[in-house]
């Protein structure tokens, strides 16, 4: 590119020294000058930037090169003589204001350059880079020379580049953001992991890890209690009993639970095997309160059973009194006889001895009755044993002194002597039968108009169950069949209504069923079914 400023300025400066040259040199100089001029003219014609000259004072365009005219869309010579401000596009400032602003800087500094928004003849705006210099021309006076470079394309390219840069920056920023986010997240995860890793140590309950063979690999703070109880340390094995459970749990691949007492607390230890990692985690929970509540509930149930037995005995009190009175009366009478007959010496020794034997026997009977009552009412742990249900039936009949006590009731026993033994608590089953038979007797006592019969029948389905049916000829149960077994339901004025509901609890606890049905003719039948357990080792059949 030509150095616009210097060559043209030089060319236009008429130096006095040249005047002093020889004609030859003048002629040479003139030729040279013409050459130069032609060259410069050529240059001026062909330079790729727009160049113009304008008067500094009046602002009139004195010269414009073809490129300038082309750039602005004017015909050749079309800009000469016009105000320089025509090149300025109106922006926030008017063209004149722009001109004046540039001019003032020019006056001060002699040059100005910068981006301007120019306007073509047809009104199109375009951006140029303008370089303006002020100079003194011998003829034209103060003028300024302005070179305009159309930077529209450049600008476009620059804008594009800037956009690309912005985009790139944006995407890089985004990527950086993402990365930062990831880093933050990972950090959080790490923190969480670290926090979780601290979790068992923060657990107030014992948490341990043992190998599949029972070696203690880890314990949290709370677990040290357990280790103290076990008298084991990290790296040592758990006590034999627990080792067995651990090994079993691991081999089975299933969680197991068992209790351990530590001081006055009870912990439920949950052995959780992790097969892939070959260890077993032990999570302990303090179940002291739970076990206490369970134990209280069991005690309460036992107390209730006990109260029910007491109330059963209470209900049978008059019958029991009579039962005891018989042997007592026999004893007393015979004792009196002995005393009287021996008042004046013993005449008939054989008879005396006979009477004394009677006394002894009757005393024993009385004692048995008392014992039976005592056994029945004492507080006891449920105790299951193999029993023959027929024995219980007979016991019940005896207990109630059914044959003597209720003389208007025909007692019909139909017992299957082949019946197999079952596993049950004899006192509890007797309690149920007493309850049912008592109810039967009372329901029959409410009907005067017919002869009564109480039928007790036993039967069995081989290898399945044993059945007891108690049928009466009393007032029946048609209206209340559903509610019979509900707690506190009673049709008796003085009844507590707990007998049948407790009976049902007892039978169901034995895995059996109790039900009641109205008979076709009179009264109703209660049916008890009790299962024959597979693991009952004794199965005797009476001959």
């Amino acid at each position, binding site marked *: 590119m030509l150095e616009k400023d210097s060559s043209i300025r030089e060319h236009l400066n008429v130096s006095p020294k040249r005047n002093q040259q020889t004609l030859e040199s003048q002629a040479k100089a003139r030729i040279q000058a013409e050459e130069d001029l032609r060259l410069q003219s050529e240059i001026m014609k062909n330079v790729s930037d727009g160049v113009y000259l304008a008067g500094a004072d009046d602002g009139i365009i004195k010269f414009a090169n073809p490129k300038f005219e082309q750039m602005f869309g004017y015909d050749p010579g079309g800009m000469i003589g016009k105000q320089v401000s025509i090149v300025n596009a109106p922006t926030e400032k008017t063209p004149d204001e722009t001109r004046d602003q540039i001019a003032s800087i020019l006056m001060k500094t002699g040059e100005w350059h910068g981006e301007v928004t120019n306007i073509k003849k047809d009104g199109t705006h375009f951006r140029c880079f303008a370089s303006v210099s002020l100079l003194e021309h011998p003829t034209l006076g103060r003028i300024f020379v302005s070179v305009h470079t159309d930077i529209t394309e450049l600008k476009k390219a620059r804008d594009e580049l800037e956009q690309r840069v912005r985009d790139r920056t944006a995407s890089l920023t985004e990527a950086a953001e993402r990365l930062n986010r990831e880093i933050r997240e990972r950090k959080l995860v790490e923190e969480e992991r670290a926090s979780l890793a601290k979790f068992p140590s923060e657990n107030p309950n014992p948490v341990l890890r043992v190998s599949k063979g029972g070696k203690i690999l880890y314990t949290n703070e709370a677990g040290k209690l357990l280790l103290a109880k076990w008298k084991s340390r990290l790296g040592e094995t758990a006590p034999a009993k627990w080792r067995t459970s651990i090994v079993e749990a691991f081999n089975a691949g299933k969680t197991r639970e068992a209790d351990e007492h530590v001081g006055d607390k009870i912990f439920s230890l949950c052995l959780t095997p992790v097969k892939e990692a070959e260890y077993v985690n032990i999570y302990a929970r303090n179940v002291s309160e739970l076990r206490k509540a369970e134990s209280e509930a069991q005690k309460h149930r036992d107390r209730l059973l006990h109260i029910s037995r007491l109330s059963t005995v209470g209900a049978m009190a008059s019958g029991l*009194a009579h039962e005891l009175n*018989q042997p007592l009366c026999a004893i007393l*009478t015979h004792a*009196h*006889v002995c005393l009287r007959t021996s008042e004046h010496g013993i005449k008939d020794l054989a008879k005396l001895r006979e*009477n004394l034997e009677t006394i002894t026997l009757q005393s024993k009977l009385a004692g048995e009755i008392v014992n039976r009552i005592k056994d029945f009412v004492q507080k006891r742990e449920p105790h299951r044993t193999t029993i023959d249900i027929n024995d219980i039936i007979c016991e019940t009949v005896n207990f109630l002194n059914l044959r*003597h006590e209720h003389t208007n009731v025909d007692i019909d026993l139909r017992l299957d002597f082949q019946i197999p033994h079952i596993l049950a608590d004899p006192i509890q089953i007797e309690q149920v039968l007493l309850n049912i038979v008592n109810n039967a007797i009372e329901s029959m006592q409410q009907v005067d108009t017919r002869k009564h019969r109480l039928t007790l029948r036993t039967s069995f389905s081989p290898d399945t169950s044993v059945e007891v049916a108690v049928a009466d000829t009393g007032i029946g149960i048609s209206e209340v069949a559903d509610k019979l077994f509900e707690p506190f339901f009673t049709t008796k004025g003085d009844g507590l209504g707990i007998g049948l509901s407790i009976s049902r609890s007892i039978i169901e606890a034995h895995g059996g069923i109790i039900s009641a049905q109205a008979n076709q003719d009179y009264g109703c039948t209660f049916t008890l079914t009790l299962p024959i357990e597979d693991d009952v080792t004794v199965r005797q059949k009476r001959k």
Partner: protein
Amino acid sequence: MMSEHEPTVFVVDDDKVIGSGVAQLIETVGLKAKCFASAQEFMDHYVPGQAGCLVLDVRMPGMSGLMLRDKLAEENINLPIVFITGHGNVKSGVDAIKKGAIDYIEKPFDDQVLLDQIQRALEIDAQDRQEQIDRQVVIDRIKSLTSREESIMYMVADGKLNKAIAYKLGVSLKTVEARRANVMKKMQVDSLAALIRLLAHTGMLQ
């Protein structure tokens, strides 16, 4: 027959041990006892007219003590009854006494109490029998009177004077006196007071 006059205590209790004990107890005081295991057994064996009393258990299978009492009343057998029972029950006790039982004793009982009541029962029975015999004697004697003698007897026992009787019957005083003498002789009394006592005692006084 001897058994008719010798009073027997009939013991009816379905508990044989108690029955035999009571029987022996009764024998220790020199009385005669007989045991039955049921009311029906007693009914089957008792000959009406036999002297004695009953010791009866209230609650027995089949016919109860109270049912037996009613049955006996139906058949006009008035043996006095002492009830014994293993079931103390005020209501049945009161019922039994109201129906004429001698006593209602609960088991186990004091031997002396039972024996005393049995004694009382036998006395009442003896008294009843005696009263019946006495009555019969008087009835027989009255039967031996003529109807005129009978009507005079009642008037005399009523306190009427001979004169008034003569006037009322329209017969002579002598006739009245004669008939009166016959009445005294046939009734086997020797005074008016005795006659009145005889008639009153046997409930024949009109």
